[in-house]
């Protein structure tokens, strides 16, 4: 395993690349990706929190500085936030490498609902890997994409607690919630 953080020195934010390196290294071990070579490329010019994976060898995660930032102390990092941001996309990469997500659309082609469903599945697993997360935050995100309904909440619970899902199972859960909300809306 090797982890590289770019840039090594930051000028617009008060980040330490060693801190990102430490958190990323521990994360890879804890989520069973210890064999992966990883590059973390931070765009310090943007305070947004966009993050994406470039699939290849090494695996590259490109993230805006907001993805790693402590919201209580702007321009500083927060270890738990680094772990959640990286973990969310790294688990997505692990899913894609498993062979059971071969039929999943490319990341950019995912709908907002599919993306929220996959995030739910990933953050649920991160929680069980021992990282502190706020379940309600991810439920709110899921509801915004699937509707504020009992079916949405029920599928959220299923995804949050799941392990070893395939893309077909994940997508079916998401689609069920979206159609239940659409049906309820048209009935109104």
């Amino acid at each position: 395993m090797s982890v590289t953080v770019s840039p090594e020195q930051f000028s617009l934010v008060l980040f330490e690349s060693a801190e990102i390196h430490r958190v990323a290294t521990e994360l890879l071990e804890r989520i069973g990706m210890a064999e992966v070579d990883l590059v973390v490329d931070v765009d310090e010019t943007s305070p947004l929190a966009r993050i994406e994976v470039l699939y290849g060898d090494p695996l590259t995660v490109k993230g805006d500085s907001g993805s790693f930032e402590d919201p209580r102390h702007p321009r500083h990092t927060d270890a738990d936030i680094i772990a959640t941001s990286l973990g969310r996309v790294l688990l997505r990469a692990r899913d894609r490498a498993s062979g059971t997500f071969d039929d999943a659309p490319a990341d950019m082609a995912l709908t907002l609902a599919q993306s929220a469903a996959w995030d739910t599945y990933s953050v649920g697993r991160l929680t069980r890997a021992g990282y502190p997360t706020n379940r309600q935050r991810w439920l709110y995100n899921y509801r915004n994409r699937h509707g504020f309904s009992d079916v949405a909440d029920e599928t959220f619970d299923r995804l949050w607690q799941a392990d070893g899902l395939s893309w077909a199972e994940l997508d079916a859960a998401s689609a069920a919630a979206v159609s239940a909300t659409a049906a309820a809306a048209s009935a109104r």
Partner: protein
Amino acid sequence: MKRHLPVAELARDSRFAHVTMRDRFNDPRSVRPPTEAEGGPGRRNVNRLTPARKDASDAARVLMHGIFVGEIQALEGAGRTCFDFETGDGVDQAPFALKLDMARQCWDEARHCEMSAKLSDWMGTEIGEFAENTVLFEAACSNDPVLRLAGVNRALEGLAIDVFTTMREFGEVATDPVLAFCEDWMLADEVTHVKMGSDWLRRLTEHDPARRAAALEFQRVVDKLFSYGGTRSDSDESPIGLARRFRELAGFTEDEVAEVAELSLSALGEAKERKEQLRREAAEAMLATAQG
């Protein structure tokens, strides 16, 4: 009890972290994507807070937390105006009826604090999860009650009208039954608070044009500051829009609304220039370090 409490002495527990306006203005990062000339896609930058945004849920959580701490400061500001001045009609006094209005506002703001805290729970946000900017309370520290009315009730509560309108629309589009409902109720109160500010400003300065001019000038300064470097304006580049209709209901004239719109757009332009300058400075500093 002490009168005219400085912002540093506001009561906050360890959950809250304070960030100053200076820190915000000195953040050289920019949400602006690179222009075509800089190798970017050259698209128009649309930041308006709607559920269609990829980061909608988190952006709404951040704004909701900002509303929450704003409500705390509005409660503290209105409460201070009841207490900081002797009761009377003098320039450094506050009439009893004004204090009664401020007391009513305290009641509203306390209710808003509670609603905002519960809404934050609903959205998965912990109290103190985001830094608190206390610039809102700072506008409520003037020695002249009329300036407080201009700065807090007209400028700050005016901003609250814009924010609540944006959040209510967000809740409606997302079909969030709780958010849309709560924002609508709070919006109704904010319109009343702005109207109280407009009415008292006119009444207290009826025979004192210099005091009125000073108050309106203070309002302009606060309005520009509260535009948060372009966070609120008619432009789609600003997350929060200008709620023209509700401002009119709150006693703003058409000219006054137009003036706020112009100030906000100018704040947006200045913020972009400022960030460009900070980024250039950082790049130069980095280059100097690299060259030893």
